[in-house]
């Protein structure tokens, strides 16, 4: 379970998170939506301890992330797979080595036979051709890089998956492929997921519940149907563009 209580974060004079309360239950997929620049990625990074909040409590898997010691935080992170917006692949390493770094159990990481099998499995799960493992990030398309990023995130068999805008910058066809992949992985692996996105269509397709972040606060959390029926002005404003789109209705 992931639980955020009264989380505040500011960078200089800019208030990014202003008392966020947010909850993700065991096994569910929550899409965190909001316009660009509202602090969705910052919120996601506070969950994994990459950004320390100025105030508030963040509980992941029963542990208070803010007060964990270095070794404890590393231990917790080994149970969380984080998919970065642009893949964040190590460009000096090929796909095999990139995905291998995701195997967080040190003994398994040293076992080359295990690594070969696990990496091949992860590459298959994200629908990439087997020969991708020898390629370098510079030789991959944007969509392939995102999928390698997902393969790396799941390589360590995490309990939690955090996706930071997995479909941003992709054309609709590739965005649909990634959404389908996220949906399938969440079902097959049974992980607890948070997906940051401003793609309403993708969020409605993938998530069990949705949350809307605006002006540093969670404006609403609920099921896709509750969002659809919500009279809340901010929710309506955010959704309207996509609801009006015929492809969304379909």
């Amino acid at each position, binding site marked *: 379970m992931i639980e955020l209580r009264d989380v505040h974060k500011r960078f200089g004079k800019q208030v990014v998170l202003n008392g966020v309360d947010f909850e993700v239950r065991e096994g569910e997929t929550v899409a965190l939506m909001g316009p660009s620049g509202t602090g969705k990625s910052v919120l996601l990074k506070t969950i*994994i301890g990459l950004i320390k909040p100025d105030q508030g409590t963040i509980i992941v898997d029963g542990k208070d992330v803010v007060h964990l010691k270095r070794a404890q935080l*590393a231990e917790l*992170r080994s149970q969380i797979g984080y998919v*970065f917006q642009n893949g964040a692949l190590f460009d000096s390493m090929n796909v095999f080595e990139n995905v291998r770094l995701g195997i967080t159990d040190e003994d398994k990481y040293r076992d080359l036979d295990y690594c070969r099998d696990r990496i091949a499995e992860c590459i298959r799960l994200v629908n990439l051709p087997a020969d991708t493992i020898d390629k370098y990030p510079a030789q991959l398309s944007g969509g392939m890089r995102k999928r390698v990023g997902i393969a790396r995130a799941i390589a360590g068999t995490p309990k939690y998956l955090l996706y930071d805008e997995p479909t941003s910058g992709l054309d609709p066809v590739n965005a649909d492929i990634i959404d389908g992949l996220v949906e399938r992985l969440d079902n097959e692996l049974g992980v607890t997921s948070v997906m940051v996105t401003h793609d309403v269509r993708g969020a409605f397709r993938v998530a069990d519940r949705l949350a809307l972040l605006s002006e540093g606060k969670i404006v609403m959390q609920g099921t896709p149907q509750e969002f659809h029926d919500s009279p809340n002005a901010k929710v309506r404003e955010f959704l309207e563009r996509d609801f009006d789109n015929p492809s969304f209705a379909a």
Partner: protein
Amino acid sequence: MEGEDKAPMAASTTYDIRQLVGRWVLEGASQVGRLTYFVIDTIRGLVEVRIWLPRMMEEAWNIGAGSLFIVLLISAFAGAVTALQTGYQFTGSIPYYVVGTLVVSSIILELGPVLTALILAGRIGARYAAELGTMRVTEQIDALESLGRSPSSHLVIPRVLAGLIMIPALTVLANLSGIVSGWISVKAVLPVTDADFIYGAQYYWRPWDAYYSVIKAFFFAGSITVISCYMGFNTQQGAEGVGKSTTTAVVTSSVLILVLDTVLTRLLLNQ
């Protein structure tokens, strides 16, 4: 009226200067704090030998093989110019063997370590800052942390230790190259025999000079690698930030090399 206008302007200027100085002091203190934390974090990562050792070997090879030619070339020219200028200045006034003394002392005590460090501040320092800066802005360092892995043992320690080993080694080779080149050059323009040169080189020779040269190179290596990695690690704001941290890394480590040169000379030679 004019006097009345000038008074608030002067007060405002004083206030601005005080604000500016205050901001510099705060920024300086914050940088020192962050650098100290960075160094402590790096030292903590030393326990993960299995992680940093193979990467350090690779990095050491990159530094050594990649920098050898330019280091030998520049120190050879420095040795040649030192020998030729010594010949020009002292011909007829002092014995020729003194050229050997001056070339060897100048190269080992000063030119070898300082020139090598300045070249490598540009070559290795810029590379480290740009590499780590790019990794920071493309979230590769965050990715490493998110995987529960220590960026210090994966990225910083291999680079710092490789520099601490290879820069003194390159300095020793630069010293040899400068001396040999000086020896050859001076023989070409002055009637100095090999025996004269060797006699001069040995006359004022103290083994401590060689240790001093390597000790200086070791400190210079520390300043180049730590400053560059620190600057790269703290890069902000995309491509512009990478350029800024690369320039700052090279300038800061070059200035630090010259400051350390003075301090170490005072501490180790003028006792």
